[in-house]
């Protein structure tokens, strides 16, 4: 891999070279390295582009890295990645996509990720999106995430998009069975003329299912963001949706949290807030010797940490 590719790999998956454990690296629309382990098998799909990741029941403390990097201008792809997590497994999954576009043509990666999480299994799923490059070509990422959670399973999903993606349409759905718990942490920063749209539907179908959705975003310059998280309680369950945004410059943000209860013991709460950086926060950091610009950076970095 060249310097740019290694940099992209670090930006999206915190990797300095080939990772430990199972991995699949996709570069400019083609496979660039794969490793399965005794407990985690990665196979190429035969009917459409993409891979199946099969984690054996009971697999503990292992990880799967499946980063995607695009460094050629004009690459457009759609891939399907299915994860089959066996009962009682406990694994870390790191995905992520980085686009370095130095040309004038659009580069786009649309990834459809499906998670089938078995009984009592636990996963942490980290997905980072990043774009850069001096070209005028658009950098587009449209991730679809579908999560099916069996009884008493746990999923923590962290999605981060901090820089450089011109347009993103993110679609996340989850179905939770009895006792399952889903935590989603979405962090997003847009700048320039970027547009980000995030739709989410969480269906809590089993007794004792619970979900916590936390969305933190910062919109700068002329960028636009729309959030539409929905939590639907179909059983005795608990859900909390929290959308918090900092708006700056000429940006626009719409936040439309929706909660629905179809069972009298469903307990669902939402909170949403959009606002500028609080002036007292800036003043406080200035009284510690920071300039106004430094203070602003500290506040944003903490907010998205």
């Amino acid at each position, binding site marked *: 891999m060249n310097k740019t590719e290694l940099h992209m790999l670090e930006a999206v998956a915190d990797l300095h070279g080939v990772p430990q454990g199972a991995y699949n690296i996709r570069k400019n629309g083609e496979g660039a390295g794969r490793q399965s382990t005794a407990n985690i098998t990665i196979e190429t799909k035969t009917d459409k582009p993409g891979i199946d990741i099969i984690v054996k029941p009971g697999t503990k403390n292992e990880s799967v890295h499946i980063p995607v990097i695009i460094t050629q201008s004009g690459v457009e792809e759609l891939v399907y990645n299915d994860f089959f997590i066996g009962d009682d497994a406990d694994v870390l999954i790191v995905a992520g996509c980085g686009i370095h576009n130095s040309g004038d043509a659009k580069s786009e990666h649309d990834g459809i990720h499906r998670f089938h999480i078995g009984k009592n299994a636990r996963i942490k799923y980290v997905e980072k999106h990043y774009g850069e490059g001096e070209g005028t070509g658009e950098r587009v990422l449209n991730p679809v995430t579908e999560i099916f959670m069996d009884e008493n399973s746990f999923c923590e999903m962290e999605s981060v998009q901090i820089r450089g993606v011109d347009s993103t349409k993110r679609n996340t759905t989850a179905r939770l069975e009895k006792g399952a718990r889903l935590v989603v942490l979405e962090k997003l920063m847009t700048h320039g003329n970027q547009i980000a749209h995030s739709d989410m539907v969480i269906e809590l179908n089993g007794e004792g299912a619970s979900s916590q959705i936390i969305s*933190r975003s910062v919109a700068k310059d002329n960028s636009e963001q729309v959030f539409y998280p929905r939590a639907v309680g179909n059983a005795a369950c608990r859900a909390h949706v929290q959308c*918090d945004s900092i708006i700056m410059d000429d940006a626009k943000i719409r936040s439309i949290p929706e909660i629905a209860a179809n069972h009298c013991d469903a307990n669902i709460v939402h909170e949403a807030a959009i606002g500028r950086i*609080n002036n*007292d*926060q800036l*003043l*406080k*950091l*200035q*009284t*510690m*010797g*920071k*300039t*106004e610009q430094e203070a602003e950076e*500290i*506040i944003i*970095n*903490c*907010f*998205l*940490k």
Partner: protein
Amino acid sequence: MLELKNISFNVADEKGEKDIITDVSLTLEDGKFLVITGPNGGGKSTLAKLIMGIEKPTGGKILWNGTDITDMSITDRAKLGIGYAFQQPPRFKGLSVRDLLSLAHGSDLPEDQCCAYLTQVGLCSKDYLNRQVDSSLSGGEIKRIEIATLMARDLSLAIYDEPEAGIDLWSFNMLVESFKAITKTRKESMVIISHQERIMKIADEIAIIANGVVKKKGPTAEVFPELMAEFDNTCSFR
């Protein structure tokens, strides 16, 4: 040495201009501890903000060690070693207590030092180091952390705006003890805006500000008894 020379501050309101501070002159020698007290709305907090640079005076001059800092920014005053504890400290989402203390210190603060500052303000450091400085903290907790942020700095002048406001009696006791401990070891000059007798008693000097002017300023031994006597004589039926 801090010198306020003929400081005035007025704001525009519907009737024209309203004087908040009028021709105030005050001096604070190095290493001294001054309590500024007086009735609500008298201009005390404004005076503290004028010293820190959060507000700019409409007249007069502020000198710090002989340098005119009247037009200096908050950041530059902070770099000269002036610090300010807010009456209502802001909260920060995503910032831990340890991060905040490190920011105040100017570099990453070792855990044991963070713990020492938190203990001094009566907080069990282990419980607080990784807590977020957000709305999960109570009013008393955030005030004590605010005071710890000033301790974590190497200051020449520390200004506290009503440190007792919004905290309960137990936290207040702890706070007085903290200030007693600070006064024993401190080298910096200190200005505390306060209504509390117990804080006034440990000061070197007291200034009474009312209606935007200095009504009285002098050593605590002189001003404190007079102030107390004034309250004792307010009931005409005695």
